[in-house]
């Protein structure tokens, strides 16, 4: 795991240029260009707001205004979900690099996760603007780097794991879409975790999901303005570290096979 981190740090110049290439290439040729980084989360928010205020109105008192609550969770979730969905295919897509250039393969999933992190960070100012507008921006927002770090470690680990495994089992790409879908509903993004009764089975299941704790922390820091979910966040961090170690181990074991199997 230390070795994997070291490799990533050593190739940071490469990671950096590839991330900026990802960002540049993504919207190249579109009319709005880089503005899409802002427009995308807004449109996503609009859709969910429409669904949960007009079609299936959510009236829970502790999460009003609902669209704002939703925004606090959906922004980091998008980062998580897009990172995993993209990283599962990233080694296959970058097969040319791995086969033809001496290239540290772990850079590819890392670039995916980091490029999506940048999108997430670009979405934050919009969120802050909304929070200011509704007068909800609290000091706890300065603690954001903590859940971001936890999520980064967890996502990187899973991305390493998925990217290497997908080379051997391309089926993963198809299954993953549905797993992520289910995972989304198993994470309190569109509903409130606090509102679930302490003893309920659902809450006990949700507690096993590391993303629950990450998302709840975001919601507390941004929306509620008071944080008491430290223990959960710490557990999520531990899970993240384990995921990273496992991902790095698997990736390392499969590394030599990647160039041949791609």
């Amino acid at each position, binding site marked *: 795991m230390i070795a994997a981190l070291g490799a990533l740090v050593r190739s940071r*110049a490469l990671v950096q*240029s590839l991330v900026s*290439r990802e960002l540049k290439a993504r919207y190249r040729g579109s009319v709005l260009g880089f503005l899409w980084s802002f427009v995308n989360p807004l449109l996503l928010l609009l859709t969910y707001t429409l669904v949960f205020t007009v079609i299936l109105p959510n009236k829970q008192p502790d999460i009003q205004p609902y669209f704002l609550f939703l925004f606090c969770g959906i922004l980091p979730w998008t980062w998580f979900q897009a990172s995993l969905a993209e990283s599962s295919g990233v080694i296959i897509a970058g097969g040319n*690099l791995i086969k033809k250039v001496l290239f540290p393969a772990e850079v590819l999933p890392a670039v995916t996760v980091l490029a999506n992190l940048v999108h997430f960070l670009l979405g934050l100012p919009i969120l802050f603007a909304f929070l200011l507008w509704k007068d909800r921006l609290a000091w706890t927002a300065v603690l954001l780097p903590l859940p971001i770090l936890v999520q980064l470690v967890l996502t990187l680990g899973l991305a390493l794991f998925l990217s290497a495994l997908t080379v051997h089992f391309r089926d993963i790409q198809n299954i993953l879409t549905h797993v992520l879908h289910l995972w989304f509903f198993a994470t309190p993004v569109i509903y409130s975790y606090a509102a679930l009764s302490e003893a309920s089975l659902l809450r006990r299941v949700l507690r096993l999901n590391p993303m629950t704790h990450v998302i709840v922390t975001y919601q507390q820091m941004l929306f509620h303005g008071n944080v008491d979910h430290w223990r959960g966040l710490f557990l999520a961090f531990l899970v993240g570290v384990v995921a990273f170690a496992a991902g790095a181990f698997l990736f390392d074991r499969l590394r*030599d*096979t990647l160039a*041949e199997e791609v």
Partner: protein
Amino acid sequence: MTAPAIVGEDVTKVYRRFTHRNQFKTLKSALLTGSVLSDLRPEEMFTALDGVSFDVPRGSTFAVIGENGSGKSTLLKLVAGITKPTRGSLSVEGRVSALIELGAGFHPEISGRENVVINGVMLGLTRREVDRRFDEIVDFAELREFIDAPVKTYSSGMYMRLGFAVAIHVDPEVLLIDEVLAVGDEAFTRKCLDKIAEFRRRGKTILFVSHTLNLVEKMCDDVLWLRHGKTALRGDPKRVVDAYLTHVATGEDAQLASREAAAFAATTEGPPSEAAPGESPGASGYRPGRWGSREVEIRAVRLLDGRGRERHVFTSGETMALAVSVHAPRPVEDFVFGVGLFAADGTSVYGTNTDIEGFSARRLEGDAEVRLDFEGLSLVEGTYLVDVAAHRRDGTPYDYLRGLNSFRVKSRTRDVGLYRPAHRWTFGGGAEVEIPEPRAELEFGDEPGA
């Protein structure tokens, strides 16, 4: 020579043959042992390189030659570190730049400028080093006016040029080249060769894989010939290239022979056809075939070399003989034997027959042999088809074999045309030339001891 820059000992690379069935098995063994192969049966594996040992002294130019699928590219990938040897060891000293696929990693949507930077970093330069060499790279690629356009708008030549320019400016200690010198027009290829020559002068190590054998001979200090993943021969470029060419010619010989046998067999079966399908040996409409009454039947046509061995590949200037076995079931008194040589496109090169040359037929019965000797086959390199016929003096065919036999002429000289008259250059007055080193033409037919 100083310490070697690349040392390979007993380098072996085994790939698994692609089957879906083995996915779980290979994954399991990869996880447990770090290798996909440990659980596979021999027939599920393919040995691309088999115990190859070699060393490349620092500052020398080393070429790997061999037929397609002989393991050349695998060797290059191993040296580049892209894959690991299954067995044996391989060590490389110094920064390696591999020109295996030019422009691998270019992103089509972004500009040439941004791609140069990213590709440079990918190949191991720092950001600052790329910036410092940027102008040089762009000038070398001759792409200054297009450098800000997205790479997807480049022609394939421009793409390759930019790829080559970046890779060569990484300034490696060890340069690996995989048959990529055909990257552009004549002028750019020359420029690449100059750049490689400059590398050699500066004492860099070069390992390259090529099918351009005269380039290999000209540039390399040492040549390794791989055959089915094993070392066939290694050493002095001239010697190895000659041995390789001989081997290739022998292979071609076997191919021509079997094709000929098949063509001949196809025409002897079935009833003899009566009419000649348009007997005009023009350049167009030349189609191999066989016709005639078979009152005289051609049983076999053999091409022989000076030592009487059957061959299908000859060196320009060599002796070639055409031995024809015929059979006449009943006595025949009116017969003419003819031979025609044609270029691959059907152009007539030479034609003659026994009548033209004044032989008058007396009698032919039972088995007979006719032989035509060419002393010094004055043809340039190429494939030639042979017509052999037995017919009446008025031209009515007994047995006409059109283009069923063929042979190849090989030559070191790249002269053009069909016919090579014996010739000699003389220079006088103010003209000064360097006389080329006299070289023996290749001699085929002997498989070298590997």
